[in-house]
């Protein structure tokens, strides 16, 4: 299956050096979303690597498109500026939902 990278120029250059063929250099989240849609059209897509800074504002939209699909996997990576501060740690959020407050249905 194919690996795709969506990111800024340095990220795509780096991954291209590592042998990833399907790289998309984008400047804005909107552009990233458009590329993401294009990637989703292919059945062969196995993994999409996207920088956190781009993913931040289109995360919900991406997740909606991925619902009911087991592939591709999407992974967010820090770009050359390093990891960004998140309001909620996504892992902690998962923990809270999985083992946190018991939901009671009356």
């Amino acid at each position, binding site marked *: *299956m*194919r*690996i795709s990278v969506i990111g800024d*120029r*340095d990220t795509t*250059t*780096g*991954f*291209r*050096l*590592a*042998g*990833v*063929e399907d790289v998309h250099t984008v400047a804005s989240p909107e552009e990233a979303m458009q590329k993401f849609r294009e990637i989703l059209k292919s059945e062969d897509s*196995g*993994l999409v*690597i996207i920088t956190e800074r781009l993913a931040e504002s289109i995360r919900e939209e991406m997740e909606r498109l991925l619902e009911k699909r*087991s*592939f591709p*996997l*999407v*992974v967010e*990576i*820090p*770009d*050359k500026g*390093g*990891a960004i501060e998140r309001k909620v740690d996504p*892992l902690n959020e*998962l*923990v809270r*939902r*999985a*083992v946190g407050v*018991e*939901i*009671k*249905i*009356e």
Partner: protein
Amino acid sequence: MAEIIEGVNPTRMELLKLRTKVKLAKKGHRLLKEKRDALIMEFFNILEEARGARRRAEENLERAFKALMLAQTSLGTLKVMECAYSTKPSPGIESYTRSIMGVRVPVLELAEVRRGVLERGYGFTDTNTQLDEAATRFEEALEAVVQLAEVERSIKLLAKEIESTKRRVNALENVLLPRLEATVKYIKMRLDEMEKENFFRLKRIKAMIEAREAA
């Protein structure tokens, strides 16, 4: 007091049927609870792994970006990009699924991405070791990122499964079971009531017959 299930006839047959239903619901409840607990344990095991994988990927990427910057300063951004686009593409990933407590999670297998200097495909007369270093670092980072993707997806799927199992446990515990039990109680009461009525009726009739015979 939970409400009773509507439309049941207070008969002995219904009572028996309901009792088996209660038994089944209790068994299901116990099994689901066990499943939930096992899932949560599995979840915490993977959680540690996920935190480690993220840290590793971030460290690897940081090193890779530093190496890339060095290559860019020594060769120029354009030259680096040119080289990047002339590298041979490496094969993609293979994927399988694995089952953790019945949850299908993906396993990604990355073909060998670490390559020697000669295998990359860019010329080496006008490039330098900084570029090779950057490429090596990004190959390492790619491995770490692929692993991260796999673990993060697994943990998300597990969390989802835990949530739905929990919901089912709660639905059984707080809705279905009380309702079934209330209905059982209601039918028992009605049956007792009917029995009492019948008994009294028999007594009355007996008294009437005796009175007639005495007359």
